[in-house]
């Protein structure tokens, strides 16, 4: 089972990564990237790294990718490709997702159902592993891997200041060299 899911997630990741490069339309590329991130999260789950999976979804799929999508869409305003051709597909998949969400919420709201009571203990255990997982990552980050963690923060600082230096207007006094260009 673990091997099977590994190969499923692995092959979809490779396929989506290829699609990111192959698609000529940047929006499609970003969407493929999104699918790839979801499958990477799946890969983390098969490795019992639930915390990393959640972070992967929240940070990459949730925040960074949406940002990418915004940028790509803003940059492509003049190009009027229609993204509405798959309305039916989108509607169908959306309804399916909605049904799933409703199903999950309705089950969660009914904890006294017999099928559910049996798994209550398991659910508690699962919650403990999730906490344990998070704790483990946190502990490793702040003890064994404290040094690389702090170096990574410096890298982010350099990236941020570098972006400002490269992009900010009027950062330097105008001089003859720059005026001539």
């Amino acid at each position: 089972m673990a091997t099977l899911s590994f190969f499923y997630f692995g092959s979809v990741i490779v396929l989506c990564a290829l699609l990111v490069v192959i698609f000529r339309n940047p929006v499609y590329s970003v969407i493929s990237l999104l699918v790839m991130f979801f499958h990477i999260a799946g890969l983390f789950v098969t490795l019992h790294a639930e915390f990393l999976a959640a972070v992967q979804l929240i940070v990459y799929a949730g925040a960074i990718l949406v940002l990418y999508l915004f940028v790509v869409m803003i940059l492509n305003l003049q190009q009027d490709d229609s993204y509405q051709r798959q309305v039916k597909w989108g509607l169908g998949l959306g309804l399916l997702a909605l049904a799933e969400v409703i199903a999950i919420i309705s089950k969660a709201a009914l904890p006294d159902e017999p099928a559910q009571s049996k798994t209550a203990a398991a659910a508690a255990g699962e919650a403990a592993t999730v906490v344990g997982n998070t704790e483990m990552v946190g502990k490793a980050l702040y003890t064994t891997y404290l040094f690389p963690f702090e170096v990574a923060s410096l890298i982010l600082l350099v990236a941020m200041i570098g972006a400002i230096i490269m992009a900010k207007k009027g950062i330097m006094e105008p001089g003859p060299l720059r005026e001539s260009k």
Partner: protein
Amino acid sequence: MTIVSTADLLAILPELLVMAGGCLVLVLDPLTAKDRKDWLAYFSLAVLGAAFVVGYWFMGALTGSPRPAFSGLYVLDAYGAFWKLLLILVSGLVILLAKAHLKLEEIDLPEFYAFILLSLSGMMVMVSGTDLLVIYLGLELMSLSLYVMAGFKRYAPRSLEAAAKYFILGSFSSGILLYGISLLFGRTGSTTLAGIRDGIAGLPPGDPILLMAMGLLVVGFGFKVAAVPFHMWTPDVYEGSPTSVTAYMAVASKAASFAAFLRVFLEALGGIKESWRMLLVAVCIATMVLGNVVAIVQTNIKRMLAYSSIAHAGYALIGLVVADAAGTASVMLYLAIYAFMNLGAFAVVTMLRRGGLEGDEIDDFTGLARRNKWAALVMLLFMFSLAGIPPTAGFIAKFYIFMAAVGANMTGLAVIAVVFAAISAYFYLRVVMVMYMKEPGETAGTPGYDVRVVASPAAIAVLLVAALGVLILGVFPDPLIQAAQSAILPLK
């Protein structure tokens, strides 16, 4: 799993000083009056001076007794201390050089000094890390700062092109390096160098995944040291970047990458030495051949020095291929000497101005001896040293590398290196010929050819240090040789 201790923090004292200094420069920049921005350069120099003193004290106290820190991810040893001292010295010289040069190019942003310091802290992490993750993060910290510095001349499309090219190719090579690290982790279950060494000892010889990981690491590090066939970025990036940044890349980034390259391959991959040796011999020969041959046809001095730096990476690789005590010491000696002569050559280039622009064509050196005999004289010295002509330090560097190869029964490799060193004399001496044997007027008539030499006190100080280094180490190299030999990695 231990919480960080005072001993850990003391172990990275020079790094902490440099990191804090870099951040402080950023904070102090808006608080400093416009006409006092030079103080930030002096402040950076003071930080480097403090770090140098601490590092020097460590090196003396530590010979022969490496001290692990941060749960074995980092080590304080004489090998790391040697490279740190060299890198701090180079960074100080580059800051001095940049102080004058940035004004000439109208890019005197104090953030430049912060980037030098932060990049230096990345290099220091790289040379002392004993865990592939730490080494990788140090490498990224160094590279990200360099990508930005390459594009500092924002008004020049060439500079932006250099930054973009360096960034994209550099990220790609980092990805390859990471892939190699992840395969190594998958095969040996560890990212620490010692853990990988133990893991490899338990694997059957010729394990294909291990060999693939080793190959990917060669690609990743090969890119950073600009070895053929991963050198494509070098000429464009070196030519487009502001010259003081080019000097920093050619000297410091190369030295730090070689330091990490040596440590990873000798400490972690020593068990499969025979396999990477074969690969590296091929890379080494290709690097010497291509670097030296293509340099002959260059007309831009920065491009020529770029190909020359590729060729020098080839010579230094010989020391890694030899992979014994003499080899390691000769690489350390080589890069220390190379730092002086290359910095000096780039410093002369920063001083030449053609109109409002930099005089970076070899033609701009025409008749330099008539215009400014001192500039011509030091350039002559650096060119002789780069070519490896005695009594300059360049000869000593090449001599020890070739002797290490001969000592390890690799006479063939040494012969090839000597042949290409002889070929390299052609393009180095051409600069000398142009400076001394042509009249300044010979290229006149081309509009905008009013080449002049702008000598600032800081640039003269850099030239003086570099020239004295080349001369003194050429005649009296014993202290440096002994420092390198006492700081070599304990072979495992």
